[in-house]
């Protein structure tokens, strides 16, 4: 990839918290990645994998211990002020002016991002409509629910035209309808050439949105590529879904003793993921056929979630907690 084509370049980034203490925490351990301009890039990983630390470095909140990160060609550690002119961010924490109205939250944000006054009203109106905030427009944010506060926070970044947008679990707490609207807004922003860098724990969301995905663990990149590439890493996984008229509980207990990637029961429906390198899916299907009269069944190749679990499931650490 040529440097001019990259919105974000991260090279061998290391972040150690409390380096002089007895227990220093190595949140990033030589992490490298590259994000093309105009793509939606998803960063996935378990809690404590280093996602938030990386986001904080890229948004100039933290300085790395070593390594280099550039955004639109600007070194984030050396030129943080210039970097901040190129970005807007929805951070993991709810960030809203609780004492101000929804409308004032948006207009204040516009002012900080140098939106001309004559455009502020129009952009605020558009964001309010897009995120279904019309009836709450004059209400103080402190009186809104958690999900609505998150909508106000996300609506703000869609008012401004910055080349790079950071979204840290942006749809957390939103209802399905607004979540859908937010995903569509993100896609629209990417179509306009903005680079979207997001983290999420909702893997379906990442699968639906992202052009490129990186799975990180213990402060380093474990796998990167487009959704199909990542899914292929979990290609040995087969998903089986069967709905029964009734279930033989003893046979089910026996089935659960098999080495399965996932086994979930929802009333009379079982959802299993099988790693075919460990257990034969045909054997599992046979056993499932003996559990009770079958109403319907479905067999499909693994999802992003399966790949995620297969890649990370056997790595036996909890991460750094950052």
């Amino acid at each position: 990839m040529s440097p001019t084509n990259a919105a974000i370049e991260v090279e061998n980034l290391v972040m150690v918290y409390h380096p002089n203490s007895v227990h220093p925490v190595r949140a990033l351990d030589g992490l490298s990645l590259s994000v093309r301009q105009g793509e939606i890039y998803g960063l996935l990983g378990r809690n404590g994998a280093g996602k938030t630390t990386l986001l904080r470095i890229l948004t100039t909140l933290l300085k790395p211990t070593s390594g280099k990160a550039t955004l639109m060609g600007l070194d984030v550690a050396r030129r943080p002020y210039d970097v901040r002119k190129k970005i807007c961010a929805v951070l993991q924490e709810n960030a809203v002016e609780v004492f101000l109205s929804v409308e004032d939250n948006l207009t204040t944000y516009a002012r900080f991002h140098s939106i001309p006054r004559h455009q502020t009203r129009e952009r605020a109106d558009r964001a309010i409509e897009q995120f279904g905030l019309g009836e709450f427009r004059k209400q103080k944010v402190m009186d809104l629910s958690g999900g609505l506060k998150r909508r106000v926070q996300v609506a703000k970044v869609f008012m401004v035209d910055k080349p790079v947008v950071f979204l840290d679990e942006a749809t957390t707490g939103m209802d399905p309808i607004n979540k859908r609207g937010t995903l569509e807004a993100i896609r629209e922003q990417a179509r306009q050439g903005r680079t979207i860098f997001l983290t999420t724990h909702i893997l379906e969301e990442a699968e639906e949105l992202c052009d490129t995905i990186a799975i990180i663990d213990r402060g380093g990149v474990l796998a990167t590529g487009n959704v199909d590439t990542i899914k292929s890493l979990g290609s040995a996984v087969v998903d089986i879904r069967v709905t029964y008229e009734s279930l033989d509980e003893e046979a089910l207990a026996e089935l659960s003793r098999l080495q399965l990637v996932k086994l979930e029961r929802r009333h009379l429906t079982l959802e299993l993921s099988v790693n075919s390198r460990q257990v034969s899916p045909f054997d599992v299907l046979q056993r499932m056929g003996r559990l009770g009269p079958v109403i319907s069944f479905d067999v499909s190749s693994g999802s992003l979630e399966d790949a995620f679990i297969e890649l990370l499931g056997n790595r036996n650490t909890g991460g750094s907690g950052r």
Partner: protein
Amino acid sequence: MNMILAVMYREYLIRTTSLTWAFYDLFMPLTYMLLFGIGLDRAFASGVQTGGQMVGYNSFFLGGVLAMASFGIAINTAYGFFVDRDNGMLYEFLTYPMTRGEFLVGKILFNSSLTLVQAAITVGLGALLLGIPVRWERAGFLVPVVVCGTAGWFFFLTTFALRIRRNDMFNTFINIAYFLLMFGSSLFYPLEGLPPWLRTFSTVNPLTWHSDVLRYLTIGLGSADTMVAESAAFLLFTFLSFAAAVRTLQGGIVK
């Protein structure tokens, strides 16, 4: 400049959501003068002796109460970091396209303007209601001194507010700082009669410099030479506090 104005606008919007808050800020020092000041004025009916002259306690206390008011506004503004942190706004602010210095200056400039209104009310009504002999010809100099005083204390407290991440611990720190700085200064009483150890501490306390300069400008107490030296010392204190606060913000307060 746009960013400083944006931060000031934001502070203005937040302040105007509570008139009780604004009312308290504006009239607190005058109330201090009317209750505490009058009480001590009666107790020390002959006044207090300082610099070889006798001054009525209300007159002496005017400069002190203005310094205390600046200190109070600076404390409230520093507490704002905890509110911003709780609301997640602090970290979001730090991703906005502004320098750390612009953020701090914008925050304190609006609040300094409140201190100016507060000072005008206190000095005006102090002269009118309590008969304090105000040197009106020097009143214009109060503007930079009040602004710089409030800013200096705010920058000083910012470093602690950002580094002390617990609200309760900051509260304890403020209580201790308030106690030591106020009673170890010339805010409530002249330094001449104090024991040497307390006098030494009070002489190097920036709240003494701040109170003395305000006292010189309001009632003409003290010498011009001392005022110049104390003003310079306070300016240096403000500059060093600003540098420390900016450095704290730049150094990554997110842990």
